[in-house]
Every structure is written in structure tokens, then in C-alpha cells.
């Protein structure tokens, strides 16, 4: 089959040049209306400006890039074929998850635990790390839906929004605390998941993707327009910050505060560090929860449904309930992350819950390798830290996102760290891995 798909191409220098020239020609045609020409607004009327040098640079880059890419691909392919011929038996050994991944996981945990102690005076580092962990938690939540159960959810941010707004409203209207609101918000987000999933989960993958996208937009539009409930575009402000078992992080006053109780000098860093450990704990709980779920029958059913739904139905698995449970658990985890987000920011508005946010979370799951817990961490690190590294880079962030999503899909349709291996494997001697 592969032989049919991969059209043979010439390897002589002339063929390579011809191929690169064709690519350059297409690039030129694509570039003329978008790069070569540009409309500029001048006092209300448009005027056309030109950027021919940029266009020619773009075409030249495409030409040389194509040449180099073709050469590299041919080299790699030849090397791979040689390797495949020599060691067929290695393929079997390759199957087991490599142990160094587990070690990286433990090392990452160690770094995460030590980070606020090392950077205790550097608020920026701890803040950024907290953002990374929010995305890690969202990624793990969505991983249940997309990576394990194979349901493409493009509206995941809706559950994040439901969690955030639930806490925002409970806190500002009824004076609830973080810990009281957390389970309630999780339950409400999960019921939203069931509400959406119940009618739609019998749909095939791509239909489901569009429906979830529509649902995400519905939630956002409602949040923008239902001013009485959500405050509309202005959002909800002055949401209560979480307290340390009832001890608030405040300057010393009449009541007992965190600093006064432990006899410390008051510092705003206490809250930052506390929030960091809070999200770390939530994320680790999520990870533990999900990895335990994966070994339960329900978790194995998720992966089975992902691989072959018809076979699952034939085996007597209730496909709808299995999918619904994945959807509800994913939604609940998203809701938890939303509560934390609202508590950390103290202010939420529909701006934070756009489709782009869904796309970022999805990109984290997909780029990391669908189903891989460690992959999510790596992808969150990359996607959150890269824009932080340079300000100029920020406007190219989404562009590179898009390009990376395409490239990684084309290169490795399963994601970077994905084995697409079942969590449990039947062994003839009765052992369990």
C-alpha cells in the first residue's frame, strides 16, 4: 500500500532541481496576492502597496528548502530501509515503553517540586510555571477525551469556562470559598459534558468535532450576551482568592492570616507559591486519577473504543456509556482547571474562553502524542514557554501553532510520544505489565 501512496520521484540532480522549481513556482503564485501585494488603509480609502523583495525571499526560501528537504528525506528513507532489512527482530523489543520515559517523568516531578524554593524571590518564574501547570492539567483532562477515547472535542474550553464561571458566581454572589466551590464546579462541568454528550456521542468523529466546536461557541456567545448572569464582556471581577485551610493571604490585620499564624513576615510571594503548589497538587491528582482509571475496565474500554468501535459493540460494550464517561470526566477535569483559573486571576471574562484556547489545548494533546501523559507536559512547556522567550515571537505564535499541527500530523500522525499502545497487554503466561 505504501508503495502506491509514495509516488516514485527522480533522484538525479536535474529531477531535484525541477521539483524544487515547481515548488518555487507554486510558492510564487501563492505569494503574489498575500505577500507581494498588500492593501493599506489610508485615510479611510485603501491603497495597494507592494513587497516584491519579501516575496522573492520567500520564493527563494521555498526553493532551497525543498531541495534540502528532498535530499534529507531520501537519505533518511534509504537509511531506514537498510535498518529494517537488518533487524526485524528488534521491532518486537521496541514495543515496550522505554524505561527512560518513566525516569524523565520522575525527574520532571522533582524539578516541579523544587522550582518555587529555588526561585522563591522570582515571581515571574513561578507565575509562568503556574500557567504551564494549568495547561498541563487541561491537557490531561482533554487527553482522556481525545487521546484515550478518541473523541475529537473542539469545544473543550467550554467546560473550562463553566468551571471558572461557576466559581466566579458562587464566590461573588454567595460568598463560597475555593474548596467548597471546587467539587460543585466539577460536578456542574461534568453535567454539561453529559448534557452535550448524551445526544451527540453516537455521531462519528468529525461530526462530533463540529458539534463540540458549536457548543463551545454557544457557551461563549451566551457568556458575552447574558449580561445579568455573567456580566457580559466585562466579566466577573473580585473573585475570592483561595485560602490556606481558612487562613487568607492578606496583610496582617485583626483576623488570623497565613503569615501571622505561622509567624512569618507577610509577603505577596506566599500566595504565588501557594497557588503554584495548589495547581501542582491538582495536576498530580489528575494524573494519578487518570492513570488509575486507565487500568480499570472503563479505562480499557476507552482505548478499545478508540481502536475499533464496531468490534467493541460486538463484544457487548455499551459504546455510548463508555464515551459519555470519558466525556464527563474530561469535562470535570476542565471544570476543576477553570475554578483554579478563576481563583488565580480573580477576574474572568469571555475573552479567556475563545476557540483559540480550545485549539491550544488540543494542540498540546496532539503534539505531545495522543494518550501520552508525559507528552502533554512537554507540549505545554514548549507552547507556553516559547512565546514567553521573545516578544517578537508572540505574534507568530498561532501561525507556528498551525504549521506545527500540520507538520507533526504529516510526520507522525500519532503524535510525538505516542505509542498507541494499550495500557494493559495480555500475556500468555498470565502476567500483567
Amino acid at each position: 500500500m505504501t508503495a502506491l501512496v509514495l509516488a516514485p520521484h527522480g533522484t538525479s540532480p536535474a529531477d531535484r532541481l525541477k521539483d524544487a522549481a515547481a515548488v518555487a513556482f507554486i510558492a510564487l503564485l501563492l505569494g503574489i496576492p498575500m505577500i507581494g501585494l498588500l492593501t493599506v488603509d489610508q485615510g479611510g480609502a485603501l491603497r495597494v502597496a507592494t513587497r516584491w523583495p519579501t516575496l522573492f525571499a520567500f520564493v527563494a526560501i521555498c526553493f532551497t528548502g525543498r531541495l534540502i528537504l528532498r535530499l534529507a528525506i531520501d537519505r533518511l528513507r534509504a537509511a531506514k530501509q537498510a535498518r529494517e532489512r537488518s533487524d526485524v527482530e528488534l521491532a518486537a523489543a521496541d514495543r515496550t515503553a522505554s524505561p527512560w520515559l518513566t525516569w524523565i517523568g520522575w525527574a520532571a516531578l522533582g524539578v516541579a517540586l523544587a522550582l518555587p524554593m529555588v526561585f522563591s524571590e522570582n515571581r515571574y518564574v513561578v507565575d509562568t510555571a503556574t500557567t504551564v501547570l494549568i495547561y498541563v492539567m487541561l491537557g490531561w483532562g482533554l487527553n482522556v477525551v481525545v487521546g484515550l477515547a478518541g473523541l475529537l472535542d473542539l469545544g473543550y474550553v467550554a467546560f473550562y469556562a463553566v468551571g471558572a464561571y461557576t466559581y466566579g458566581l458562587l464566590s461573588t454572589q454567595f460568598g463560597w470559598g475555593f474548596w467548597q466551590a471546587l467539587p460543585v464546579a466539577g460536578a456542574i462541568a461534568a453535567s454539561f459534558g453529559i448534557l452535550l454528550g448524551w445526544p451527540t456521542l453516537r455521531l462519528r468523529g468529525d461530526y462530533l468535532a463540529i458539534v463540540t466546536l458549536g457548543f463551545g461557541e454557544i457557551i461563549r456567545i451566551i457568556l458575552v450576551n447574558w449580561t445579568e448572569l455573567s456580566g457580559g464582556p466585562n466579566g466577573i471581577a473580585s473573585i475570592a482568592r483561595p485560602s490556606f485551610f481558612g487562613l487568607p493571604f492578606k496583610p496582617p490585620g485583626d483576623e488570623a492570616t497565613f503569615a501571622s499564624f505561622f509567624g512569618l513576615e507577610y509577603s505577596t510571594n506566599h500566595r504565588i507559591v501557594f497557588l503554584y503548589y495548589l495547581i501542582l497538587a491538582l495536576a498530580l491528582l489528575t494524573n494519578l486519577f487518570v492513570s488509575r482509571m486507565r487500568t480499570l475496565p472503563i479505562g480499557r474500554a476507552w482505548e478499545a473504543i478508540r481502536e475499533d468501535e464496531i468490534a467493541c459493540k460486538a463484544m457487548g460494550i455499551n459504546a455510548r456509556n463508555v464515551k459519555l464517561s470519558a466525556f464527563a470526566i474530561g469535562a470535570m477535569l476542565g471544570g476543576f482547571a477553570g475554578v483554579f483559573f478563576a481563583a488565580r486571576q480573580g477576574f474572568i471574562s469571555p475573552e479567556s474562553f475563545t476557540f483559540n484556547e480550545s485549539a491550544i489545548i488540543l494542540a498540546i494533546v496532539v503534539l505531545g502524542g495522543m494518550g501520552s501523559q508525559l507528552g502533554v507536559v512537554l507540549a505545554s512547556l514548549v507552547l507556553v514557554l516559547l512565546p514567553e522567550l521573545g516578544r517578537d515571537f508572540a505574534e507568530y505564535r498561532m501561525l507556528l501553532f498551525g504549521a506545527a499541527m500540520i507538520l507533526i500530523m504529516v510526520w507522525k500522525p500519532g503524535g510525538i510520544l505516542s505509542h498507541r499502545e494499550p495500557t494493559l497487554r495480555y500475556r500468555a503466561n498470565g502476567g500483567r505489565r
Partner: protein
Amino acid sequence: MALALQQLINGLTLGAVYGLIAIGYTMVYGIIGMINFAHGDIYMVSAFIAVTVFTLLAGFGISSVPLSLLVVLLVAVFFTSIYGWTVERMAYRPLRGSTRLAPLISAIGMSIFLQNMVQLTQGARVKPVAPVLVGGIDLLSVDGFTVRLAYSQILIVFVTVALMAGFTWLITKTSFGRQQRSCEQDRTMTALLGINVDRTISLTFMLGAALAAVAGMMVTVYYGVVDFFIGFVAGIKAFTAAVLGGIGSLPGAMLGGLLIGLIEAFWAAYLSAEYKDVATFTILILVLMFRPSGLLGRPEVEKV
């Protein structure tokens, strides 16, 4: 009454545009069974090309309206088809025969990429175009409310009807149409019969992009403003139209487009303008729940 008539006209115009975009979704879904998520953004790219060419023509001092419309149409269709071809070649062809999710995710990536590319190269601001086709016919006037049929609306409906007729002929009567329908049924068998499947799929993408280009050019004429975000919402609505009409069915796409356009126009006029997008998405969910094969589609048989 007068308001209803006006909304009927507006709704049909809007619906014609959705229908044209929806055909692109439906054809691609028919032939390779994937949702071309980037199709809405192809439409957006074409609208930007139309803006550029309109401005260029105005700069050259060409004032003949039919001539400039024709030139813009041809240029936009040409460049947009190349975009359609490239998108298929880069993001979808390598993933043919892969899992179902892989091409969809790369399509989302492509959509994000195109949106941000246009935002970076052409600017994030709304582009106002000098009106090309002004004026209209006043149909009737009731209590100071005048029902107006703009020339641009006549143009949109006329072009859409002509394109639909031409397209139906292309698919049902020509050799390319037969190849295309045969690819929809069985790609391997089609290839065995000596038909270049890759080329047929590429051509399908180019045709879909060309129709989106017509829609993009006409929307530029009709609304007079374009920004990099129009593709997202228009794409979702056109997809809803394709699903409503029955995905894979050409008349269904047109019918679905008209229905979505009408629902949106009347919803905005009589219920609430803020929630008109919610109406579209709710219809999408309801259709998928109760009639997943759409109004004119055939139910899909799942084979093992």
C-alpha cells in the same frame, strides 16, 4: 410584512453565499470523507484577494463595473484554486489512509495557519472596500419602510443560480463528473480503471476553492468590509448548511445554505440579533441528533 419581505431577500442572498461555500464542504466530504476545516479560511483568503484586486483596478482607473467584477472574479478564482490545491497537497494527501482524526487535526492546523498568515501579511484591521456596485430597486414602501433589492443582491442570486446549473451539468454529464462520482464510490476500483485518483481529488479541492472564491468576491461586494476572521464563522455556518442538506449531496448543500440564511435573517429580525449564531449551532446539533443524514442525504451504511 414589509420587514418580512426584506428579510426574505436578505436571507436568500446570505443563503446563496452559504450554499456556495457549503458545496466545497460537501464535495470534499463526498470524495475523501473528511471535513475540510480550512475551507472557510480559503473563502476568507479569496475575499482578501478580491479586496486587493478591486483596489488595484480602482487605482488603474477602470470604472466599468461589469469589467472590474469579471476581472476580480477571474483573478480571485485563479489564485484561490491554487490555495485549495496547495492545502490538499500539503496537509491532506500525506494523511490519506491514516486515522480519521489525523487529517481533521491537520485541517484545523491549516485553518489556524491561514488565518494567522493573512493577519500577519495583510493586517489585523478590517478592510473597507470602496463600494463597487451601488444602488438598487425599491420594491414597495409601507409606513415609511422601504423594501429594497440591492443590485449586489441580484448579482449574488443570479451568479449562484448560474453556477449551480453549470455545476450540476459538470457533475452529472461530463467525464470529470463521472470520474469524481466514481472516486466517491470506490477509490481503489477507480484507480484500477485507469483514472488518476490524485488528480481528481486535487481538482475537486480546486473546484471547491473556486466556488468559495466566487462567494468571497461577492461578499466583498455585498458587505464592503473584510477581516481575517470572517472565514471561521462563515465556514461553520456553511458546514452546518452542508450537514442540514445532507452531506455529500450538491442540491442538499444549496438547500441547506438557503435555509440557514433564511433562519439567520428572520431570527436576527424577530428574535435577537446577538443570538443568531446560537440559532445556527442549535440547528446543527438538532439536525445531527434527529436526522444525521440531513434533508436530502442518504443514510450512511457502516461497513466493517
